[in-house]
């Protein structure tokens, strides 16, 4: 299988190279109109078919690696390092992306899959798709070169073949790890597609904004995958790492967040280009930056550039990525300089208080947030270069600098929909802002009344102050969006005579993009409410003997015993705790500590009891060697469930926005059409011309 896999990768590289060269030549010939013996259109089509064949070749290589994992072929070094016989089947599948070589192969396969779909849909716009396909082939050549020459996944072991492998990293042996990395990769790799369309449209001086419309679904789907990857990663960190949190501002987490921010900015600012023909250069650079940031993210994860808990795979492939990033950046700059006259805006923003300027400020804050995260991630390298010592840029820095920016963004999320296009009158502003302002101040009063105060016994707490601002702004934004729904639904109700609920459904169906977007924004608001809850986290730690009790908030945990278990994959010890709320009915919680046989690495399995108000999160920290008693750490984390619930709504809203709207043309099909009295071909107006 190793030979088959290696051969498939070489074939894939050859096909990608042909796709790139033949595609570029064909497009050049079409552009110059030079007479040649072979028709450029036919040459472009052979390039396209090579791309499709490339997908089959990369699929073959990916299959070979997965097959080798399942058949425990430890003659392949990668399989030996990332799998073992006792590894459960789903995690064997996860071994594909648990190491450097496999994850690069996954990247190449996903890129090939995206390219395959793109090449099949080429009839939408043959020339634009040919440009995009050729650019994707260029990216694929890079990844396949890295896989073939720098990080081959099918390298064979020298010497005797061991009986069993080293096993999968225990941190990855969790159900979400089977889906989190592919989602993140689908997001990362997916941004190659809008990038290819953006660069291709600029290269060919594509007339109009149709390319934006074509790439909209690609961008939304990609953005959704990246969002899903990030949130699954957060949930995994929460459930597995056992520190009670879900986001640690780790460089690798940051690496996934940066393209998400620029991608979000792009999704918003392309609306200005579609509606008003504005911000063309800006949008092109946003998509260029997003793609470059996905490459940077991959580099950070692999090159050992910054220290990270997630940096599973470190190697010397950094140089390859540096060179590729420079080539991509140079291509972008060169193409932009050459074609910038094509990107002149049709209109400009007319007023500071308008929907357009709210988009501008939204972009400004998103990009500032991105800069802050990039700055914080790379600052240790800069400080080492300047001062000779590497400083740490951890959560205190980001919480102080990035959180206020996030709150401004939340504010703009509410303000944007309330402002009309072009400019807003003072009267309109007053009318639209009454309800959100009222919601904001009522929430401030309620929060203070119910104890969500920015000060505590230990003084003023900035985190709690930010949380108060976050809660209040969330209420205001929710009121703003809800009032938009109510306003629209009333109009529909008046037109159709349906009730408000049905009218809201019809309203959303008629403009899925707008109202799907609003639903996604409500999801974001719910997520932010959940994030604000972290300011009120509590924790308790105790050595617990039999029937010892630990109280935290309204809960009491009573130790009912400790036990051990073993299976072919790991040994575990776990606590059996009876938890009860306010003396009510008890339920059992069993936090666990595992030690995996193959790797001899320990792993925490947290016990979580979730309610809409808070999570009771219990960690088995191990046994105190001095006393022989186990240590239990309990956290009471308010509103964490809102983060996952808000994410579900964000996904739903985005899916609604992707669904084509019930356009007036199709809507008319559902309305009974009045039949004309006569079906004669006579003109309707006597004497009129036919």
């Amino acid at each position, binding site marked *: 299988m190793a030979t088959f896999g290696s051969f498939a990768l070489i074939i894939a590289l050859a096909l990608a190279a042909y796709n790139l060269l033949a595609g570029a030549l064909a497009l050049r010939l079409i552009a110059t109109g030079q007479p040649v013996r072979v028709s450029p259109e036919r040459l472009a089509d052979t390039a396209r078919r090579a791309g499709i064949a490339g997908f089959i070749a990369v699929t073959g290589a990916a299959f070979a690696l997965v097959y080798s994992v399942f058949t425990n072929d430890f003659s392949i070094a990668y399989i030996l390092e990332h799998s073992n016989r006792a590894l459960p089947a789903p995690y064997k599948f996860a071994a594909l992306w648990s190491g450097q070589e496999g994850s690069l192969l996954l990247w190449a396969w996903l890129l090939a899959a995206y390219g395959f779909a793109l090449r099949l849909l080429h009839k939408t716009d043959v020339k634009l798709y040919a440009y995009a396909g050729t650019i994707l082939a260029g990216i694929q050549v890079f990844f396949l070169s890295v896989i073939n020459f720098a990080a081959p996944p099918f390298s064979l072991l020298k010497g005797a073949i061991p009986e069993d492998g080293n096993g999968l990293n225990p941190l990855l042996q969790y159900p979400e790890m089977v889906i989190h990395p592919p989602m993140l990769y689908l997001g990362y790799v997916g941004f190659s597609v809008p990038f290819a369309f953006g660069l291709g449209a600029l290269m060919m001086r594509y007339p109009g904004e149709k390319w934006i419309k074509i790439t909209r679904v690609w961008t939304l789907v990609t953005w959704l995958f990246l969002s899903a990857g990030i949130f699954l990663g957060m949930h995994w960190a929460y459930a597995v790492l*056992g*520190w*009670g*949190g879900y986001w*640690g501002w*780790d460089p690798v987490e940051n690496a996934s967040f940066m393209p998400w921010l620029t991608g979000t900015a792009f999704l918003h600012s392309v609306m200005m280009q579609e509606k008003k023909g504005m911000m063309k250069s800006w949008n092109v650079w946003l998509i260029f930056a997003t793609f470059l940031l996905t490459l940077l993210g991959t580099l950070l994860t692999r090159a050992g550039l910054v*220290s*990270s*808990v997630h940096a599973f795979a470190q190697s010397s492939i950094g140089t390859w990525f540096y060179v590729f990033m420079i080539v991509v950046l140079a291509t972008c700059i060169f193409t932009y300089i050459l074609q910038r006259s094509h990107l002149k805006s049709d209109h*400009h*923003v*007319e*007023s*500071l208080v308008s929907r357009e*300027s709210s988009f*501008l*400020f939204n972009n*400004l*804050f998103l*990009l*500032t947030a991105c*800069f*802050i995260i990039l*700055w*914080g991630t790379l*600052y240790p390298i800069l*400080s080492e270069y*300047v*001062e000779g*010592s*590497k*400083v*740490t*840029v*951890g*959560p*205190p*820095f980001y919480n*102080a*600098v*990035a959180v206020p*920016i996030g709150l401004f963004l939340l504010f703009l999320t509410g303000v944007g929909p309330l402002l009309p296009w072009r400019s807003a009158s003072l009267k309109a502003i007053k009318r639209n802002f009454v309800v959100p302002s009222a919601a904001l101040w009522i929430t401030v009063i309620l929060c203070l009344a119910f104890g969500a105060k*920015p*000060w*505590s*016994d*230990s*003084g*003023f707490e900035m985190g709690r102050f930010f949380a108060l601002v976050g809660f209040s702004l969330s209420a205001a934004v929710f009121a703003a969006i809800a009032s938009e729904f109510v306003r629209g639904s009333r109009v529909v109700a008046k037109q159709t005579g349906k009730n408000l609920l049905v009218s809201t459904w019809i309203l959303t169906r008629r403009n899925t993009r707008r109202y799907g977007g609003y639903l996604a924004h409500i999801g974001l608001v719910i997520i932010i409410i959940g994030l604000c809850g972290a300011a009120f986290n509590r924790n308790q730690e105790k050595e617990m003997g039999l029937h010892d009790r630990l109280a935290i908030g309204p809960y009491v945990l009573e130790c009912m015993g400790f036990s051990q278990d073993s299976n072919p994959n790991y040994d575990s010890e776990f606590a059996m705790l009876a938890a009860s709320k306010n003396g009510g009915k008890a339920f059992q919680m069993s936090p666990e*500590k595992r030690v995996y046989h193959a790797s001899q690495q*320990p792993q*925490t399995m947290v016990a979580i009891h979730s309610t809409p108000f808070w999570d009771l999160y219990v*960690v088995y*920290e*191990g046994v105190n060697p001095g006393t022989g008693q186990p240590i239990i*750490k309990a956290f009471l984390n308010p509103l964490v469930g809102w983060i996952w619930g808000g994410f579900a709504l964000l996904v739903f809203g985005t899916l609604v926005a992707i669904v084509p709207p019930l356009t007036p043309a199709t809507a008319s099909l559902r309305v009974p059409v009045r039949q004309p009295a006569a079906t004669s071909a006579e003109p309707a107006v006597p004497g009129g011309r036919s």
Partner: protein
Amino acid sequence: MNPVRQRSFWMKSAQALFLGVAVCLSLGASDAGSRFTDLGHRLMCTCGCSQMLGECNHVGCPESDRMRGELRDDIAASMGDQEILNAFAAKYGVTVLAAPTTHGFNLVAWIAPFAVLAAGLLGTFLLVRHWSVGKTQLAQAGAGAQSVELDAIHEKIRRETGGDGGY
């Protein structure tokens, strides 16, 4: 309300707000437990796990328990927050601090984000102002040209019809 009284009202409101915020900021005294939690989240574990000292929880960590013990001892010895941070930085190197310091070159780390935001805001304001002024001037110029054109048409109609052209 006359303007002087109105100004005085706003001044008093601003003073009250300022006083309120100042009181909030200085409220309460830090106890040892909350200082431990706070400082534990301003220091990093040095075992290479990249976690904050207050959150490092992996089994058999060779550093975090000992470091937390040192932190407890320092707090018990009535050392100030900055004094404790300096002592840790002197012992373990600056990487033990969870955020860059606010002096020397590291001040750049804190200033740069706000400088970029300020520059971005200023740039956006100026750009939008430039566009809106340009638009107004264009509209005025357009209106001027249009009125000259209209006058010419009126004059032509007047001459050709021998009257006022029906206006």
